[in-house]
């Protein structure tokens, strides 16, 4: 048989459109927040994850890329002598204000060993091996600051010439810039220490090297690359998840209220018709399904519109704001779908109660 819900909605296109738009906005916001979260989760530890190191070494007690870590160079010499370790490269950096023209931008400037690992991941233009007085900046920072190869910027009162633009260094809260180790010592103002050690190990030995360093080298903690990346992601999760949860709950409630109100109003206006259906002997189950289906149709169409819109919104946002990182994942789409279904069921609850309470005798009044 035809769907009463679908017929009712087709008969009232404006109300249907309003209801769908309400769900679509809720789905869009929900999908956008999740895309943002997924994008940030992916990007924030992307550098740690993509650098070709098998093991990361940091100051003892420090478990992520985002915690302060100071390790003497001598300790890294000890690490280099441990069994299974092939090479040790070190990183030294700090967050700095980078000035270009009258504008100032934040960047995390990393000094790396020219003959080691830990430099820029991918070079978009120019070169990736800065000499003294030179810097490689991330593409996002380059676009934000409108800086290109050959331009000069100022960091900590030192003038640096941009010799390369890299990608893969946008870690959301900052963008990574790269200088030589000597330049880093000047910018940071200290020498004889580094923040992190990046180790290449003998094949299949990363786990054993980690255990060995943690057991035998005092003052440092070692992690396999994946674990260090995961720990770095946790920083985001701890800080952002509670905020995200609140926003998601608010969006969920707003969506449910919009759908609920429109379905409830539609039900109220059709109260007499529901009375007629009851007088004709329509089972309660059918009436419940009719209202539930109406709510669900609004929800599912709104979900589809919202999901399509989020693709456009993400692209638009990234084009307008280069730092903006979103990642659209099918797993997140399923979460939004589940939320929309829950929203629609919740929205149908009061209208269903209303329909079930309609007195069929009222249809005998003219």
């Amino acid at each position: 048989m035809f769907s009463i819900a679908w017929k009712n909605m087709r008969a009232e296109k404006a109300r249907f459109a309003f209801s769908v738009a309400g769900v679509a906005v809720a789905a869009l916001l929900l999908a956008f927040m999740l895309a943002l979260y997924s994008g940030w989760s992916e990007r924030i530890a992307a550098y740690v994850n993509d650098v070709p190191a098998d093991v990361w070494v940091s100051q003892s007690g420090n478990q992520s890329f985002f915690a302060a870590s100071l390790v003497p160079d001598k300790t890294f010499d000890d690490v280099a002598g441990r069994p299974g370790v092939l090479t040790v490269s070190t990183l030294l950096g700090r967050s700095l204000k980078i000035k270009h023209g009258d504008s100032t931008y934040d960047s995390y400037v990393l000094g790396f060993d020219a003959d080691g690992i830990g430099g820029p991941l991918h070079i978009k233009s120019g070169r990736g091996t800065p000499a003294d007085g030179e810097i490689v900046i991330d593409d996002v920072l380059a676009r934000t600051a409108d800086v290109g190869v050959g331009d000069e910027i100022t960091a900590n009162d030192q003038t640096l010439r941009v010799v390369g633009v890299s990608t893969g260094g946008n870690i959301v809260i900052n963008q990574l810039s790269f200088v030589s180790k000597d330049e880093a010592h000047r910018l940071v103002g200290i020498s004889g220490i580094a923040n992190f050690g990046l180790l290449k190990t003998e094949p299949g030995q990363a786990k054993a090297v980690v255990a060995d360093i943690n057991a035998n080298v005092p003052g440092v903690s070692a992690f396999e690359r994946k674990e260090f990346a995961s720990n770095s992601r946790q920083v985001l999760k701890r800080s952002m998840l509670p905020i995200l949860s609140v926003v998601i709950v608010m969006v969920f409630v707003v969506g449910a209220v919009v759908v609920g109100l429109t379905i409830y109003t539609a039900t109220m206006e059709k109260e007499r018709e529901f009375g007629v259906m009851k007088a004709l002997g329509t089972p309660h189950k059918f009436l419940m399904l009719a209202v539930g289906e109406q709510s669900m149709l609004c929800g599912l169409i709104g979900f589809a519109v919202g999901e399509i819109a989020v693709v456009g919104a993400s692209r638009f946002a990234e084009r307008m704001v280069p730092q903006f990182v979103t990642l659209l994942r099918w797993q997140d789409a399923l979460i939004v779908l589940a939320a929309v279904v829950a929203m629609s069921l919740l929205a149908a609850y009061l209208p269903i109660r209303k329909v079930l309470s309609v007195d069929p005798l009222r249809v005998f009044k003219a």
Partner: protein
Amino acid sequence: MSLLKLSHVSKTYGQGASEVRPLDDVTFEMVAREVVAVTGPSGSGKTTLLTIAGALQAPTAGVVEISGEEVQGYSQIELAHVRRHKVGFIFQSFNLLEALSAQENVEFALALSGHKGSHGRERARQLLSKLELGTRAQAMPRQMSGGERQRVAIARALANDGDLILADEPTASLDHKRAIDTLQLLRGITRDLGRSVLIVTHDMRAHDYADRIFWLEDGQLDAVEHGEVHTRPHDVGPPVAGIATN
């Protein structure tokens, strides 16, 4: 077998000083192929009688039997089942479902009584054709005249397999010609389809199409002769084109 039997039925609303008793120990019976008109002053309880006869509400006392089935003590679910299968309703203001076409309105009632899918569609088409609405099957209620809407409502009432049609003021929203058409149609239904029709109405013209007439007042239902409340040449109307008992 009687299609409808009310035995010592009473209905009371309110309590104490505000107590109203529109039906007081009413006993009444309808058999196959008859049109019965119940008339009376406004507020006399005609609609109460109709809704009790249609298993829409229970009497305060007495026994109601619809097509041989006693319905007192039935749950709402069981009463709804009786309405779906044994009773057809015609309302004063048509009460078609506005989002559905004429055919879909009839199909809806058919589906409730178990005639779904292509069988239901075909049967709805047949019913509408027999009521001379074949070309208006896809029209929406808002696109139809009052007479057409009432005929769709009649087709809907005929959709289930029940033999009892209950009509509440079926001519009240119609002009004279369409009112007469509707009464003739109801008369024809009993003759050609073997259904029985109970009409509660203020409209004295309905008496001319009824086999029996009752007057309801002060809770009492009394049989009256045709001439007692109104006189008019009895006209059973033309046959309903092509309607056949199914």
